[in-house]
């Protein structure tokens, strides 16, 4: 399977997000999930010229597999340089697969406040969901063989690679 180029996907996501943002009652804020999601968010944030600075979430403390895996030694502090209350939040991740990372990110987000709405944008949608969570905006949807995964390398250049396990 050949992997798609990232740049055209980002351009398509930007166009779709522009339409979604135009329908919002006020300008949204953007939050990227560390680390791949943050790279994608940086690019989208720039392309959409959002006023508020970009937020960053490290969801390590909210993972549901902490018991088995332990804490990753390089956890970054989450940085949300704005109040979350009543904001329209665009949550960005690189790959949405099981939906568990997004569950953790939503939990953390709500510990900072009560957003007016959350819109999920992902570069790659791998429909192997274990939770009722779907991206609102996706760069591409890929159907993989069992055991295959997609990994984003970056931050510059951004490239997608297929990982066979």
């Amino acid at each position, binding site marked *: 399977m050949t992997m798609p180029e990232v740049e055209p996907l980002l351009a398509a996501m930007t166009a779709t997000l522009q339409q979604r943002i135009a329908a919002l009652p006020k300008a949204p804020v953007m939050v990227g999930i560390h680390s791949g999601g943050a790279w994608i968010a940086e690019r989208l944030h720039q392309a959409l010229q959002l006023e508020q600075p970009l937020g960053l979430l490290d969801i390590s*403390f909210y993972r549901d597999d*902490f018991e088995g895996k332990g804490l990753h*030694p*390089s*956890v970054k502090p*989450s940085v949300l340089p704005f109040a979350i209350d009543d904001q329209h939040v665009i949550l960005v991740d690189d790959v949405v697969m099981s939906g568990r990372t997004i569950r953790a990110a939503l939990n953390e987000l709500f*510990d900072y406040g009560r957003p007016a709405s959350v819109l999920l944008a992902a570069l790659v949608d791998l429909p192997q969901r274990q939770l009722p969570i779907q991206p609102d905006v996706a760069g591409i949807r890929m159907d993989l063989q069992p055991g295959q995964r997609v990994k984003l390398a970056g931050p510059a250049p951004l490239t997608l690679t297929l990982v066979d396990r």
Partner: protein
Amino acid sequence: MTPTIPPHQLQLNEQGQLRHFLTTEGLSRELLTEILDTADSFVSVGKQQVKKVPLLRGKTVVNLFFENSTRTRTTFELAAKRLSADVLNINISASSTSKGESLMDMLWNLEYMDSDMFIVRHGDSGAPHFIAEFVCPHVAVINAGDGRHAHPTQAMLDMYTIRRHKGAFENLTVAIIGDILHSRVARSQIHALTALGAREIRVIGPKTPIPEDIESLGVKVFYNMAQGLHDVDVISTLRLQERDGICPAAQ
């Protein structure tokens, strides 16, 4: 029952990770740096509207304080609660332990309540070590200060503060001033600073509260404050405590 395993072996598991935290002595630079990095990642928790992360949900932490303390106990309690653990605070004055129940009876009782961690403050050097040696394998022990021996978490907090202000330890000359003899904090600071690679560690004080063999820890001794403070980057001051019996006001 007499403790037999040296603390720096007892506190590490087979993978070289901490399973208890009894002393900063004998710990590697990598491990201490990992502790500082991990602490760094929690900085944003206090900025959340809900100041809590679910890391220790379902765990029970017991604060076992055999010696009075307000700051240490409340900060341990707050830290455990912000990590979502359930917390028991047990203040054991000398009178209540002498009701007939031995220390081990009480610990086993607490273990049967499915506790996961004991935070131990004790006036006798080695008490947390003793407890760590005899608890069930699933219980972790953190030393919150024992006698004149060690106060590893206070020392790590001081290392964290130094790193925040100075960035790295390699080029630092650090002076520790005051009653070194009675200070578990000074001892833990010296071990941590040595492991983290501080260039020079000095202790400054009058002769009485400077232990005779302190130079064996690799520190320089100064009896003159002005000389000792010349060209230092960091100063750590220890207060004189009445309980240690050398406070002039108390005598």
